């Protein structure tokens, strides 16, 4: 139902384009090379806005500003963009260190920050000398802010070479530099730069007391041109594909292409079109802007030849736009709410609705994963972010299967909770930059990626399902020991054992596959690496509990207590080992994790222990009563 609504909405939206406003859909398709991957400008804009602002759309009272709008405003109307409150600084220590005026919204403008950074330049340079490990969080944030600001400014200056900004009124000067118009760009006079500089040298060495107006004009032009010329250091906006065989795989930023001489008639046309965009934007000539944008898009695809796949770029834009995971989490939460409501009224219908909401959420969740897989051409489990998405999907999938087999709402309950929690967890990783990054050499093998990592994450998902089932068991058992037989706890206990065995299967298989991958890559099956130990810990813990149950040492309750703690074990193995930061597996470190992990693990252990003890006490009381 939701999917249909979304499709209709998007379809209608595509008609509201035309000549009443700027259309960015063509520009956002243009491919650009960034961090080793070819992506559409849409992603490029979002990644940078995400890094600076924390979200990929700017919330505004009147109208939300998308990343694309923000980026092009930065390029064509920097005076406005530099005054937008987009730089997110929440740490007041940083605000104070940089002598910024504390803003209640904790958002600051580029102008404010660049002034502050310039004033503190010396201390910042000193900060860079300290190793990252010994920096305080505030110091790290200051440096990050510095890099982000530089990067933002770089984007703003990337097209300055085609900006028609220079004025020459004197006809002599115009003739000297071969310009026909009063207003021209750096690129227009690039052939005459040496003429200009020689002329200015002549003037300066001639030692005249007073220059006439023509000479003054030329000198001030020279100063301006030199200043703009420093923008040739901008390399982040690699929008020009390599046109020659010897350029290899490197794409060029507009300035770079000029300096390196990587131009062809096509790139000349590219610059020309760009030089039209700016003025069209400034005078709000929507039709001219949109038409030029369209031609630019066509041109870039021609220049890129077969280095880019237009369909996949289009898919990535859709992926960015639909924000499937946000919709999925909304549906999961909705499912949970419906399920809770089902205890109050209309039980079976609400439960059904809750289940449908869960399944719809899952299909969006899975669609997102599939899209990622197609766009990046590799299994969707290569980073901590992706593993969170994947484990969430697996947990919900198993919960859905459980609901179909067992009915009664238990599966929906587990699925909605796990789906929400795990997706929510994943959002924390989004501000780390482009979530579709490139992989270091050893990770970049599709086969082992698909098998080992996928299997282990399925194992994690199963463990979580078993863990949540055990939470339910403990609560039910506790209520039973107080109020007599209410639920079918014996059956639930059997289900938990079954889930534990499934989890064991995937965890053991995944761990061994990891060892085999290590054997193939590094030559040793097992190295007692923290991540390996973590995986082994999960297997050992499950084996420990299962054998405890088989031998009778653990009864149903004890087993359930142990299974709740499994959640802790999995969380530690998944995230905790990265905190140890030693060994071959240290990648994917995010700073907030330690504290959150502590909270999660303590709460799980507390839950298990408290309920276990309560049940034991109640059982003892019962025994005493019947004795």
């Amino acid at each position, binding site marked *: 139902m939701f999917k249909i609504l979304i499709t209709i909405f998007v379809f209608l939206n595509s008609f509201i384009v035309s000549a009443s406003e700027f259309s960015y859909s063509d520009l956002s398709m243009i491919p650009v090379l960034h961090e080793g991957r070819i992506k559409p400008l849409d992603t490029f804009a979002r990644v940078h806005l995400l890094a600076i602002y924390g979200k990929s759309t700017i919330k505004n009272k009147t109208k939300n500003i998308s990343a694309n709008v923000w980026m092009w405003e930065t390029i064509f109307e920097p005076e406005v963009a530099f005054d937008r409150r987009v730089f997110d600084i929440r740490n007041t220590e940083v605000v104070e260190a940089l002598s910024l005026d504390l803003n209640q919204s904790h958002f600051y403008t580029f102008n404010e920050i660049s002034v502050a950074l310039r004033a503190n330049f010396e201390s910042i340079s000193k900060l860079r000398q300290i190793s990252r490990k010994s920096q305080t969080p505030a110091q790290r944030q200051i440096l990050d802010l510095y890099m982000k600001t530089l990067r933002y400014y770089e984007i703003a200056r990337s097209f300055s070479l085609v900006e028609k900004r220079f004025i020459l009124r004197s006809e002599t000067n115009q003739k000297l530099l071969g310009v026909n118009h009063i207003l021209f760009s750096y690129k227009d006079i690039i052939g005459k730069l040496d003429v200009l500089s020689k002329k200015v040298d002549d003037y300066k060495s001639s030692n005249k007391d007073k220059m006439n107006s023509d000479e003054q004009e030329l000198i001030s032009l020279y100063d301006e041109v030199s200043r703009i010329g420093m923008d040739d250091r901008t390399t982040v906006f690699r929008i020009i594909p390599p046109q020659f065989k010897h350029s290899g795989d490197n794409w060029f930023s507009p300035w770079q292409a000029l300096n390196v001489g990587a131009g062809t008639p096509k790139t000349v046309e590219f610059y020309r079109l760009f030089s039209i965009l700016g003025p069209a934007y400034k005078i709000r000539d929507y039709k001219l802007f949109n038409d030029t944008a369209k031609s630019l898009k066509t041109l870039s695809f021609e220049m890129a030849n077969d280095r880019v796949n237009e369909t996949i770029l289009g898919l990535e834009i859709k992926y960015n736009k639909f924000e499937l995971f946000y919709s999925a989490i909304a549906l999961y939460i909705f499912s949970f709410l419906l399920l809770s409501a089902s205890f109050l009224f209309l039980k079976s219908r609400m439960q059904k609705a809750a289940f449908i909401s869960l399944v719809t959420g899952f299909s969006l969740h899975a669609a997102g994963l599939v899209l990622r897989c197609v766009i990046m051409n590799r299994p969707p489990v290569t980073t901590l972010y992706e593993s969170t998405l994947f484990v969430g999907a697996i947990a919900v999938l198993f919960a859905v299967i459980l609901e179909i087999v067992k009915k009664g709402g238990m599966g929906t309950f587990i699925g909605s909770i796990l789906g929400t929690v795990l997706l929510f967890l994943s959002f924390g990783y989004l501000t780390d930059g482009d979530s579709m990054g490139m992989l270091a050499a050893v990770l970049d093998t599709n086969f082992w990626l698909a098998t080992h990592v996928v299997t282990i994450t399925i194992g994690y998902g199963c463990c979580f399902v078993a863990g949540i089932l055990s939470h339910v068991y403990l609560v039910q058992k506790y209520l039973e020991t107080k109020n007599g037989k209410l639920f079918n706890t014996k059956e639930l206990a059997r289900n938990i054992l079954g889930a534990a065995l499934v989890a064991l299967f995937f965890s053991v298989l995944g761990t061994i596959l990891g060892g085999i991958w290590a054997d193939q890559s590094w030559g040793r099956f097992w190295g007692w690496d923290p991540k390996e130990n973590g995986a082994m810990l999960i297997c050992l813990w499950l084996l420990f509990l299962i054998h*405890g149950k088989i031998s009778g040492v653990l009864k149903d309750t004890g087993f359930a207590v142990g299974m709740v703690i499994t959640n802790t074990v999995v969380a530690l193995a998944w995230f905790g080992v990265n905190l140890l930061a030693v060994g071959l597996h240290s990648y994917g470190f995010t700073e907030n994790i330690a504290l959150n992990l502590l909270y999660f693990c303590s709460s799980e252990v507390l839950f298990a222990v408290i309920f276990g003890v309560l049940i034991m006490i109640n059982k003892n009381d019962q025994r005493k009563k019947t004795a």
Partner: protein
Amino acid sequence: MLIKKIIDQLGSAKFFFYSCAWLIILLVQGTIAQKYIGLYQAQNIYFSSWIIWVNDLVPIPGGYIPMGVIFFGLAAKIIFKSPLKKRTIGIYITHIGALMLLVGGLLTAMFGQEGSMTIPEGDTVSFYTDYHKVELAIIDQSNKENDTTYAFQDGYLEEGETIKHEKLPFRLEVLKYCRNCNIHRKTTVANSNEKLIGFAKRFKLSNAILKIEDSENRAGVVFRLIPNDINNKEDSVGTYSVIEFMPVEQTLKFEGKDYIIGLRHQRNHLPFSIKLIDFMKENHASTAMAKSYKSEVILVDNNINQRNLIQMNDPLRYKGYTFYQASFMEGESQTTVLAVVKNVGRLFPYISSIIMCFGLLIHLILASPKLFKRES
């Protein structure tokens, strides 16, 4: 019958339950310790050991004990306590697979060898260097064509040990050895009976805490050179100090022959050599992140000259040795660093994993009706 009772207990689920608990505790302790003392030390103390001394006073079982106990328990279970019933056939297969895994682990721990091989472009190398063990090498350079090396491994490097060889006209008495040493410049010329030569004259060695990364440890040894013939009063008789990665090699002349004495990681010789023709590295476009790297090598074994390409996830296997592309060094010439492994137990994990998962799968299929069905 006592034996029967013991086997019964050994092969019971309860026994595994308790041994497993101990293994879990060791695993957690050892993993946390890794943050503070590094992987190598943590492994030696917690996992690859029989006894752990807590506070140097209380002995508790180290990794080998629970693993060994589980091994025997599993064997007992499989041989004596597994009646072949349809219900338990899956578990039986799984247990056999698990036993195979442990056997493989045992073989690797006992017979496995590994090290690294560093080859600059154009060079040929026929040995690999151990990652951790240190050796003292006495190199006889008297022959212009060949050097003769006498290498004395770990056990010799202890205070009080004597290093000698029938072909050497002298012996070395080890006065001090530190796996990681601090080097102090001597401020005063000590008035001692010892005749100090070379490095030992100006520098003193003292024990330092072991670093987290074992490769950062720098070993050092102080020894006295004693001629076999007591009457020999050569100049080179005296006390020397040698450290790993010495800036200047310690050389000496004895009975007209030139010797170098050095401390280095153990070298294991291969029955063949490898020559690096070209090392190639490819970065992800416009980044400094490595996309792939590979080494074009020639395997030289007597008359056989075989060209080979070693790259990530694609090693070279020859005569029981496996060569992996591990790392590289940039510089004037590119140098490849290969990881070398010789492991008899290599195939066991592969076979055991197939068996284990097959067994688990069968058990799940057979048992799922009972575990998941809805009670009517």
